[in-house]
């Protein structure tokens, strides 16, 4: 789960990381009030889960409260990469002497949290990593001991020569490490980390991504979720216990298991079609899950055919068949459906479907080919 910048800022400040004052607002009038309180020139920043906010016109400088109000009225409500801006962050325009990068990721290869620092801050760090990898310094932290002071200092010397600044940066890195475990972050970064003309080290922008598997034990963090930044169908699916990702194609896919769901989408493409979604109904599927899945898939007007691909293991094919029958009697389908079922309780499932007037196959390739043809038949 991605946090907004203003949410990440609050968490960093709670952990004692120095950041400029600022506040979040949802209306131009609020922006004006915050700008007046802060005094001087302010920056208004759109709060959406998208990169390149500046280029899209979502970050603006305002010299006085009146201008802040006027600019905020343009930014609030604008679309950035398909997302509507609902909130803006208002911060004082900082006078900056230098910009660096400090971030933690949980690294697959070392199986540890890795601290990355770079004196090339304020730009896209992935770009720095691919063009000038030598400008990024890394350290895999042993979680049994945490980030040790000398390790943090060693990295801070890659950013600053002045020992006072080195100490401030090292202290900040240790606090950021605490944040990682405190909120269950898979990524926590400060970009840019700046020095002010009077020599202070400050975090100017923050990004935190929380591991979805942590949300159960961090209800305070889970409560920060902004459902307005997600496709409504994905919110609905999550609440129904399904993993769903909307795509642009015409073949609606309903599969058990993430790997098989991906392989099914790939096979749709292989046979010349386009998948409308990724949908994993999960392991122990009850009929209700299938009903919910069909509701979500059929709500997409782009879907011209529905494809079920079920390999029964823990998932019982008869549960899925019952779900299909329940769903289609509650809301009749307007697009053709192709069903492939094999594995646990396959026979029972076939009987249930035949009785209800549906046919089903056991071969994945045959089913995908048929679904692609059906989707095209309707489109043509």
């Amino acid at each position, binding site marked *: 789960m991605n946090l907004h910048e203003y949410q990440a800022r609050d968490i960093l400040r709670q952990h004692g990381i120095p950041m400029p004052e600022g506040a979040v607002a949802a209306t131009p009038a609020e922006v004006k009030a915050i700008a007046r309180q802060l005094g001087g020139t302010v920056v208004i920043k759109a709060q959406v889960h998208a990169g390149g906010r500046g280029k899209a016109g979502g970050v603006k400088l305002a010299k006085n409260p009146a201008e802040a109000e006027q600019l905020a009225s343009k930014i609030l409500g604008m679309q950035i990469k398909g997302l509507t801006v609902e909130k803006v962050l208002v911060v004082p325009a900082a006078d900056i002497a230098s910009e660096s990068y400090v971030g933690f990721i949980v690294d697959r290869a070392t199986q540890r949290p890795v601290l990355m620092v770079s004196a090339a801050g304020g730009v896209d760090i*992935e770009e720095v990593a691919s063009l000038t990898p030598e400008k990024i310094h890394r350290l895999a932290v042993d979680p049994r001991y945490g980030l040790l002071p000398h390790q943090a200092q060693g990295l801070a010397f890659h950013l600053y020569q002045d020992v006072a600044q080195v100490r401030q940066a090292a202290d900040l890195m240790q606090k950021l490490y605490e944040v990682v475990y405190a909120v269950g972050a898979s990524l926590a970064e400060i970009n840019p980390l700046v020095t002010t003309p009077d020599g202070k080290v400050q975090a100017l922008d923050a990004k935190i991504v929380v591991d979805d598997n942590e949300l159960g034990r961090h209800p305070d963090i889970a409560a920060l979720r902004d459902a307005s930044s997600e496709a409504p169908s994905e919110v609905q699916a999550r609440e129904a216990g399904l993993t769903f990702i909307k795509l642009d194609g015409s073949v609606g896919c309903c599969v058990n298991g993430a790997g098989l769901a991906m392989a099914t989408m790939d096979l749709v493409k292989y046979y010349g079609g386009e998948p409308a979604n990724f949908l994993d109904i999960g392991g122990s599927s009850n009929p209700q899950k299938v009903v919910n899945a069909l509701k979500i898939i059929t709500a997409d007007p782009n879907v011209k055919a529905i494809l079920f691909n079920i390999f029964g293991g823990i998932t019982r094919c008869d549960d899925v068949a019952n779900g299909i029958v329940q769903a289609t009697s509650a809301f009749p389908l307007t697009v053709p459906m192709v069903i492939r079922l094999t594995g646990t309780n396959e026979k029972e499932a076939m009987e249930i479907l035949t009785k209800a007037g549906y046919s089903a196959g056991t071969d994945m390739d045959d089913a995908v080919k048929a679904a692609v043809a059906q989707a095209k038949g309707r489109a043509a």
Partner: protein
Amino acid sequence: MSIFINKDTRLLVQGITGRDGSFHSKQMMAYGTQVVAGVTPGKGGQRFEEKVPVFNTVAEAVATAKPNTTVIYVPAALAASAVFEAADAGIPLIICITEGLPVLDLTKVMPYVRERGLRLIGPNCPGLISPGQSKVGIIPGNICTPGRIGVVSRSGTLTYEIIHQLTGNGFGQSSCVGIGGDPIIGTNFIDCLQAFERDPATDAIVMIGEIGGTDEQQAAEFVKAKVKKPVVGFIAGQTAPPGRRMGHAGAIISGASGTAADKMKALSDSGISVMKRPADVVPLLKERM
């Protein structure tokens, strides 16, 4: 022969009386796996299915029943603790089926397991099976048949699909290992490829990867340098959009890394025959054997 488990495997089930644990324990026993003990705190002294002794702690189970392998079915919030407990008791092979463990927990679990010289498989995996000998986890036994193909995979149902293709076309399996779909896992492709390469009962290897991370690329390097047996590979997620987590916690394309195209190229550059779809596994194996 086989890898990791065989007819001599003596299995402990952590969470044996739970919903998933009890269901799959019965399945494993029906398959012929020697389930020698179970653990559920508070239920020590009971017998599971009137047969398997249940203990309060893993240490007690180890002292009495002498298991050499344990499988974990406890809920996600308790699963890391269950792995620590198994590691403390020194069980050499720990299989964690549970899905949904926070990845930061694994940053602490892994050094604990490693420094004791133990092996963790998973978490978030279907476990493994050596057909005709032993099954540990949730892979349906009826789709497998004994034979000479080794299977290693990051996925669950996709693995069943490919095993199904193999069995239906006369290719039995020596062992099938599901290593799990999380970003940090105990046993990776290279560990399994190395074990299959050394296993005299395995003639060829099928590896099933997916988007996210660079494990498959490293495995490809390893195959090129160290594996003489034929390897056939599949990568799921060719149509996955970047930046989205595709069900598995580890299946996400970040930046330019982790794409299916990248992985398929790495595999094929290392002499691995790459399937375009699951049904290609049989013709490619025939070509290579």
